[in-house]
């Protein structure tokens, strides 16, 4: 392959950064829809008022006066509940905007600096590791569970009753598979062999 990574590498870094963070497109659309809804109601009332017609739902004058007199005129329980709901929605939006939003994905190490970039879902990594661990432990697929997170891989094995599982062999197998993948960020591996076995597997 005769590729020149120099010409495309800033682009690729940007693409990879975007691919491993979650997109806010849905939340952004919801936020925009909310603002559009409120603004179009306001627009309707303002337009109706500007041409001197009676208001549709509530006269702006009356609404403002009620707002000024607020703790009066409404039960405090209802007011508090409305406030809590608004604050909750606001918190969801705010955290969506602030938090880093890592996706459950890893980058696959590039063998040559020139190959295409590869992004892998953690679920795919987990199922590949589970298959490898299952072969090393010589158990059925149901007896292995692998959890992959950003910096950690946990392999849970439930041995067949009466057949001991070699923990080191499983660890070595999973390690060799992970080395072949050369993930980024590189996770640490933990193998847990359950103390009780499964009967009749």
């Amino acid at each position, binding site marked *: 392959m005769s590729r020149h990574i120099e010409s495309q590498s800033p682009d690729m870094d940007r693409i990879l950064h975007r*691919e491993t963070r979650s997109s*806010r497109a849905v939340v952004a659309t919801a936020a925009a829809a909310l603002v559009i809804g409120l603004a179009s109601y306001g627009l309707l009332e303002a337009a109706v008022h500007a041409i001197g017609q009676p208001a549709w739902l509530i006269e702006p004058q009356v609404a403002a006066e009620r707002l000024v007199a607020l703790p009066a005129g409404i039960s405090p329980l209802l007011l508090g509940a409305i406030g809590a*709901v*608004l604050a909750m929605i606001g918190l969801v939006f705010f955290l969506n905007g602030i938090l880093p939003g890592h996706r459950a994905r890893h980058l*696959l190490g590039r063998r040559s600096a020139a190959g295409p970039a590869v992004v892998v879902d953690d679920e795919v990594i987990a199922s590949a590791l589970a298959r490898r661990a299952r072969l090393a432990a010589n158990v059925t697929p149901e007896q292995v569970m692998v959890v992959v997170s950003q910096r950690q891989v946990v392999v849970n094995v439930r041995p067949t009753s009466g057949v001991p599982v070699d923990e080191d062999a499983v660890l070595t197998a999973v390690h060799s598979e992970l080395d072949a993948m050369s993930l980024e960020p590189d996770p640490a591996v933990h193998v847990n062999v359950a103390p009780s076995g499964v009967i009749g597997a």
Partner: protein
Amino acid sequence: MNSTPTLLNRTLIAVLGLVLLVVGGLLMLLAAVPAVASWWHSWSAGVWAGANDAFNATRFPGRPESWLWILVALALLVLIGLMVAWVAQQGKGRSDVLAVGYDPGEVPGDVRIGGGVAEQALKHALAHRPDLAGATVTTYDVKGTPAVKVRLLPRQGVAPHLLAEEVFALVAALELVVGKNIPVLVHIGAGARTRFSRAERVR
């Protein structure tokens, strides 16, 4: 890989969230703390009086309505337009050109290769593999340069690095045919189709 404005999204969402949070918090405090209620009365009465004066000062000559309402309506219209423009920015960036080149030969004109070439060729090459539950190929326009995204849905237990190696070979062959280096992103993902389908047993 698309050109969704991520920074703009984050900022606007955070600002809207903050505003809602403050309003909600204020309402809760109004309901619970009497001291806040008395502060609110004095503050909001002042603001309301100011707004009233503004409306009274801007009446149409000889009519009771204020032309401030028309300004408010226009401002809201602009706001709605901005929001629509913001939504239209989400998920943009697909393109249908894979390569553009000027041919300095004797024949006039230049060469354009459509994104369909890469999409059809790679899709066809990946279609009948037993270890894949699905594959999609899309061409994007990343800041002016065309780039290809290959999304693969392997069956359970398929080693992603071996799969990626084989896709690299396909991409290299495609580049040989097109005669240009194309930035390629391979996304090996999981979905409902892979989760509930049978595992690949033989490889």
